[in-house]
């Protein structure tokens, strides 16, 4: 199949592809060998150092952490989606005194690192008598920062609905709010679903800030476990593997939704 860069390969190109295949495979194998040798040279391949991760209690501890990760991610996602929707509606409002503040919030928050927000909640709020429980010390900053991201997604969705839809709604006598609720939002929601899922993967990744807050999510559980059994690289590799499996599945879901949407758009 030809692409923008390459034609259907002829005999010479096919030969080159074979050579590149062999070289690429060799390079990949060399990388793996190098990594394994580095582990072995430092005694990190000893069975005793991996044995604990063949036992249930270690996994149970990490999976408990994963559960807390889910809990924080789901609560933060729900709150920031609700808040984000309000912000998006504010940004498309015809009234400038609603539009201004909503736009200002989104533009400002988008340029502040989530860790800085976490520090504000950890170190600034207690000084003003607001010492939240650990769970909320993680969820509040994540909500504040992700609400802005969801707001932009929702706004793009609302703007993608043709103007004729709103005009038709108003023409049959619905109020502005009814038009938004009954006609625009249902269509927008369907269009933004893939972006919402991939933003939620980002939010799930952000929950690893629990490491800083000492909320017992997956990464912090890994830290505690590593301090207990002294198996640093093994523990963090297992933690990384769990994140990889969970997030890759969610990303795959986002891609499937997108593909389904493109099919429906053609039909």
């Amino acid at each position, binding site marked *: 199949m030809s*692409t923008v*860069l390459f034609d259907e390969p002829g005999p010479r190109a096919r030969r080159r592809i074979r050579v590149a295949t062999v070289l690429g495979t060799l390079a990949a194998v060399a990388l793996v060998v190098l990594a394994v040798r580095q582990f072995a040279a430092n005694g990190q391949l000893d069975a005793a150092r991996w044995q604990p991760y063949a036992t249930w209690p270690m996994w149970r501890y990490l999976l408990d952490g994963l559960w807390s990760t889910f809990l924080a991610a789901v609560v933060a996602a729900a709150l920031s989606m609700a808040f984000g929707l309000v912000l998006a509606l504010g940004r498309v409002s015809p009234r400038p005194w609603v539009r201004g503040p909503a736009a200002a919030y989104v533009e400002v928050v988008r340029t502040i690192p989530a*860790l800085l927000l976490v520090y504000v909640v950890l170190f600034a709020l207690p000084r003003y008598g607001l010492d939240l429980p650990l769970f909320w010390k993680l969820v509040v900053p994540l909500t504040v920062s992700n609400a802005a991201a969801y707001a932009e997604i929702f706004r793009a969705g609302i703007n993608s609905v043709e103007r004729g839809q709103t005009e038709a709604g108003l023409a049959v006598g619905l109020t502005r709010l009814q038009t938004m609720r009954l006609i625009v939002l249902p269509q927008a929601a369907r269009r933004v679903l893939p972006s919402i899922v991939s933003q939620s993967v980002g939010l799930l*990744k952000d929950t690893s800030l629990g490491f*800083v807050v000492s909320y017992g999510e997956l990464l912090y559980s890994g830290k505690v476990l590593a301090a207990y059994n002294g198996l*640093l690289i093994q523990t963090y590799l297992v933690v990384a593997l769990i994140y990889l499996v969970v997030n890759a599945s969610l990303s795959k879901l986002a891609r499937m939704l997108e593909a389904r949407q493109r099919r429906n758009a053609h039909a």
Partner: protein
Amino acid sequence: MGVLLEHLPELWQGLIVTFQLTAASFAGAAVLGVLVCALRVSPVRVLRALGTAYVETLQNLPLLVLLVLAFFGLPEIGIKAEPLVTAIVVIAAYEAAYIGEALRSGVNSVGKGQGEAARAIGLTFAQSLRHVVLPQALRTVVQPIGNIFIATTMNTALAAAVGVVDLTASAQRVNLVEAQPIPIFVGAGVAYGLIAAVAGFVTGRLERRLVILR
């Protein structure tokens, strides 16, 4: 305000470190991202698979997990560098996955017929890349790359969580001494905001100059 001026040297030093982290890791990510993109659009299946594996792995791991792995895990197998260097390498590797994907979608946005036409009039691979594909691809990637630059700036703050004293970390240290969180954290936030605003301005200008409306 006074507290900011009093601790200006520390905060300035932190800002310099944030600049270093951002500039160095973005430059590294750009180089590595081109390589990742080249792997992903190559006609060789093994190379494509390697590129896909790289992107999938790096995009689905939280940056903080990668930083923790590099700072606390890698020394266990005898790989250890200065904290600033380690942070730069990890952030560059992470952002390279995103830059690679942005570049790839830029290349794919150029119509197949453009490449075919270039080859039909006898341009070599390098020539068609240089004169036909890249000029069109670049226009569509300016905005996404600008966004990745801003995200990189924000992400460098995570280095503070593993002990690099950047702007976020110095703000927190100054706050521990002075206990005046509002001016200190607002000041740090404004500094990040300014970096993002400048980046947004530059990409906006670049885009206006490159984009051809049809």
